[in-house]
């Protein structure tokens, strides 16, 4: 064995990212005949996303799963999470694996010194609350939590809500005591954080469809012999396909589980949400990517 790649990520062991990572490790060992070993550390046990990216630049960790957080380094990574940019998973796939995806990856490699080798679709973000919210008008005056992402604040302000950025660790208690009345996240996170206990409705806003990358530190990648680089990319492709199957299966299971736990799901006038937020989204993104965002909306 010549090299060990430590892969840290934030998901728990039941998550499809983790299962795909484990498969990736297996495939890499098989294809490189044991020359390269991948060790997977779930649950942030190797550090949180931003720390891991810093660690990859400093040579203290080799791999992670990361997405729009990379925009702190590479502004184009913001394109991984643009509200209402893709109407369906297929449309998102076309962007992620197309020309725009290539540009994003190139900028990430250059500015953040990490190399994307596969991408996983993220579950669309949905809005939970204690009432049905099916049109932007239902949002009037609702205090909701958003992650510390200015674009999300702008989007929800434009939709008429009162977004407040808050650390994730505070969200459950704040929903419980009413500091906030709503929050938005993918179904998997709604389930793992038990928001079903403090929120009764899932409004299928599907406002952000995005993806996330499996990445290797660029300085490590350059040390890997070309033939093993090829093996790693093959393994990554296998993991990507497996993750997609697992992800689609999980989304249905999670919805069923949340429904069984008493949450009501509502179809939402997504077109109205998309229209009401579009200007704010275009104004809110970095100038360097504005033309691309406009193009994405135009399609």
């Amino acid at each position, binding site marked *: 064995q010549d090299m060990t790649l430590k892969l840290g990520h934030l998901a728990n062991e039941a998550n499809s990212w983790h299962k795909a990572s484990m498969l990736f490790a297996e495939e890499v060992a098989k294809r490189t005949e044991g020359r390269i070993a991948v060790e997977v550390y779930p649950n942030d046990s190797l550090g949180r996303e931003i720390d891991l990216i*810093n660690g990859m*630049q*400093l040579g203290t960790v080799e791999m992670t799963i990361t997405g729009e957080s990379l*925009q*702190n*380094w590479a502004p184009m990574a913001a394109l991984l999470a643009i509200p209402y940019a893709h109407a369906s998973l297929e449309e998102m796939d076309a962007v992620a694996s197309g020309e725009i995806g290539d540009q994003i990856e190139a900028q990430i490699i250059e*500015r*953040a*010194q990490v190399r994307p080798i596969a991408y996983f679709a993220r579950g669309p973000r949905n809005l939970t609350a204690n009432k049905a919210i099916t049109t932007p008008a239902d949002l009037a*005056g609702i*205090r909701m939590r958003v992650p*510390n*992402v*200015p674009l999300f*604040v702008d989007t929800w*302000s434009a939709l008429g809500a*009162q*977004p*407040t*950025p*808050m*650390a994730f660790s505070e969200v459950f208690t704040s929903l419980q005591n009413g*500091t906030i009345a709503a929050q938005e996240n993918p179904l998997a996170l709604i389930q793992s954080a038990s928001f079903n206990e403090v929120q009764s409705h899932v409004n299928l806003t599907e406002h952000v469809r995005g993806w996330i990358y499996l990445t290797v530190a660029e300085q490590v990648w350059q040390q890997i012999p070309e033939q093993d680089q090829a093996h790693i990319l093959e393994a990554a492709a296998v993991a990507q396909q497996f993750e997609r199957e697992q992800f689609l299966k999980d989304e249905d299971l999670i919805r069923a589980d949340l429904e069984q736990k008493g949450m009501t799901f509502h179809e939402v006038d997504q077109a109205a949400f998309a229209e009401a937020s579009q200007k704010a989204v275009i104004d809110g993104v970095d100038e360097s990517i504005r033309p691309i965002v406009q193009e994405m909306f135009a399609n």
Partner: protein
Amino acid sequence: MGLLFFALIAVVMTQITTRTFGLPSPVWTEELSRYLLLYLVAFGVGLSLLTGELVNVDLLQETVSEKAAWVMRFLAAACTGVLGAIMIWPAWKFTKIGAFQQSPSLRWPMDIIHASVLVLSVFLCLFALLRMIAMLSGVDDGRPQYVEDIE
């Protein structure tokens, strides 16, 4: 340091007030409060070494002679100085990679924030050295100096 603390309070109160009264919540409060906290530690760590608030376990020192205990306290200060000194260069490296990164809401270059660990290392080293010098010149016996009560 006091100013950092006041700023911290002001930032958090801004968050609470705007949210409570339905005003637009500034997006940067959570971020800024974390950064202020980091600098609070960076500037406070040296003094906390002198006041014993970095937490010494003096069980063994109390069982040996005063002379041996003095040597142990001197060694402890030296160890602290060494750790601080060794951390300075890597902390500088860590600071430098921050330059490529911007904070999500304030859009500050992150080297400014990463530098808090550099400041921490320098202060740790500096205050340990000060204590060693003071111990050698007999000004300080190396015991924790409790802050005087405010009357």
